[in-house]
């Protein structure tokens, strides 16, 4: 059993994914046709031997809770391990106060009780996609003697991307000098992956301290404030990294993984990403179907043309339909002779009557859940 327990946080109030987030938290967003975004942090934890995991749920938790279930599909021991969903019930009408710290405060006894078995905590967000061995990261943290270890990813497109994320300012010894918002002022930045390792005891004291300083404080803000006092260090992450922090980044992250080489940067056969099965049968391609450069989940019926797209479980692409640069979520139907391009089609939606749904690749469109157009 790991020396750490896991916390999977939900996105802060500054993150907004238009459309999709009206129906479910980002953690429950469909990803690559068969996964949900939260499968990544939980599988990372499970594969690292962390089998006591708290998932924080803020708004519209139904779909998330349904997906998580008992956590058995994440390979978490059903007796020794535990997957808890913790709700923030006293959320304020003013979103300003609905911080991660407020959610932790609400469940502080449960966090404190974790200390008995797990002296460390690994915190990871439910809105970022990456694989990381937390067990080796924990070893690095302990060996370094640091108080807090933060995971970051070095990028060279911070001017136009990752604009809803925080960045780490590091000194030469990888010490974190400060955490601040990415304001898009420089190309090269260390994007903070909202992933922390520290002693549970320190985590509890930071939560309490943050509440005293400001009732609107968030975890990165209090850690930033403590940077001078505490030994806070950054560790660079390698491999595929994507954030789902706005609509465009959701669209782009899905399409980026159609490239198999890119996907092997994220998916390692020795590091399985678990998800909940829906027991759908294989996908059936009919005579005349044409499909290129795409990722398709099971249970689909394909008669039309698919290009450069991600197709979720149980979708139907009818005869004559052309699907290009799209992310189609589970159970959607693209009707006969419909031409659809640069769109996210949400679950159960049917595009039947409007025969041309084309958007600009820089401004992908969105078809609502359950909608018929």
């Amino acid at each position, binding site marked *: 059993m790991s020396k750490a327990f896991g916390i999977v946080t939900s996105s802060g109030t500054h993150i907004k994914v238009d459309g999709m987030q009206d129906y479910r938290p980002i953690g429950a967003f469909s990803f690559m046709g068969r996964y949900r975004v939260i499968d990544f942090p939980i599988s990372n934890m499970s594969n690292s031997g962390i089998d006591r995991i708290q998932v924080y749920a803020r708004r519209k938790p139904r779909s998330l809770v349904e997906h998580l279930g008992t956590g058995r599909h994440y390979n978490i021991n059903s007796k020794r391990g535990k997957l808890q969903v913790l709700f923030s019930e006293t959320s304020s009408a003013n979103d300003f106060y609905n911080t991660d710290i407020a959610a932790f405060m609400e469940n502080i006894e449960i966090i404190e009780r974790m200390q008995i078995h797990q002296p460390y905590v690994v915190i990871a967000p439910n809105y970022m996609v990456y694989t990381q061995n937390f067990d080796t990261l924990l070893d690095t943290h302990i060996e370094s003697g640091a108080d807090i270890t933060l995971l970051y990813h070095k990028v060279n497109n911070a001017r136009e991307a990752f604009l809803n994320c925080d960045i780490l300012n590091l000194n030469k010894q990888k010490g974190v000098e400060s955490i601040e918002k990415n304001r898009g002022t420089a190309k090269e930045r260390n994007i903070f992956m909202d992933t922390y390792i520290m002693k549970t005891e320190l985590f509890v004291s930071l939560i309490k301290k943050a509440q005293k300083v400001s009732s609107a404080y968030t975890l990165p803000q209090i850690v930033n404030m403590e940077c001078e006092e505490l030994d806070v260090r950054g560790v660079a992450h390698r491999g595929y990294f994507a954030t789902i922090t706005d609509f465009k980044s959701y669209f782009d992250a899905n399409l980026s993984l159609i490239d198999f080489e890119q996907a092997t940067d994220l998916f390692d056969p020795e590091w399985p990403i678990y998800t909940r099965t829906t027991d759908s049968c294989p996908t059936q391609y*009919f005579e005349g179907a044409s499909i290129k450069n795409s990722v398709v989940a099971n249970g689909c019926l394909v008669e039309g043309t698919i290009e450069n797209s991600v197709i979720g479980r149980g979708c139907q692409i009818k005869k004559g339909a052309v699907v290009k640069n799209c992310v189609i979520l589970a159970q959607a139907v693209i009707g006969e002779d419909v031409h659809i391009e640069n769109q996210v089609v949400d679950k159960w939606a049917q595009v039947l009557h409007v025969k041309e749904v084309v958007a600009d690749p820089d401004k992908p469109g969105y078809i609502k859940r359950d909608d018929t157009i």
Partner: protein
Amino acid sequence: MKQNNMLAMILAGGRGSRLHDLTNKVAKPAVSYGGKYRIVDFPLSNCANSGIDVVGVLTQYESVLLNSYVAAGRRWGLDTKDSGVYVLPPREKADANLDVYRGTADAISQNIDFIDSYDPEYLLILSGDHIYKMNYAKMLAYHKEHNADATIAVIGVPMKEASRFGIMNTDETGRIVEFEEKPAQPKSNLASMGIYIFNWKLLRKMLIADMKDPDSNHDFGKDIIPALLNDGKKLVAWQFKGYWKDVGTIDSLWEANMDLLDKKNELDLHDSTWKIYTEDVSALPQYIGPDATVDRAFITQGCRIEGDVKNSVLFTGATVGAGAKVIDTVLMPGAVVEPGAVVTRALVADGVKIGKGAVVGSADSENILLVAKNVKGVE
């Protein structure tokens, strides 16, 4: 048991020797089918969907994989407090020598204690190597409605093929008056599917008598059914309509897979009201590359396709390299067709690799080619 007082026993001990190398290491019920399934998933899912909670699986031949596979009852949702899948290979007993199951009836006889522990009113006997979807609850309702001692599921087969089957001759009420095993001159086309519902008390008595009979084959078709008819018991035929296949040979296994390519195939695995459940594999969704073509195919997760796939069924993790062609072929789990290779009218066994540029099978072969060993590439 709470649901309908019927316990199911699946006969899964057979080798299926006409499947040749496919069953060298696994019993026929564990053979892969339909992209992501094993044959035994069908009777097990049917049980789960029919509200049967307790299923015994009688295994014998090469049962290591099969035993561990079916023991995970949660795959079919058979893991509630009152349900379970129980693996029952032959065992040593205090009052008898360790012996193999000598026949289908003997397999049940040797597990009377297991069945008694659930005290069922009805016993459903199934075969572990048939592909079909059936609601056993409907069959049980028919059994009760007709006050039968035993009900046998039958399926209409073409008259000219009837002499290959066990044929049930019935009267106008559906009561079975005669059973003929592979008759030269069949009188009816109702073939037994090897699916029986018995009143357990009666069957129990018959089995105990059968065990003591030195001349018996201890077989349901050869011994138990004729004995029941001799005793004047009420046996009725319940006619099943739908897809049913006993895949005995490489050709028929290939064909059963190809059936899935039909637009209106009767098995309809897409039907969400009667799902077939199986092992939950952690695999990527299927990747279709930029230069791939896919025309009339049944493909599952974990596959990666860079070449051309036509009229084929690809199982979990099968890969087709760039420039390779896979035509009229079944690629079993993990089969690899390397770049430039051409595979036609073949069934490529689990994990088998067809090397670069190799040409395997031919479009006008009479039989389907079973490729059970790696094929070297052509440099």
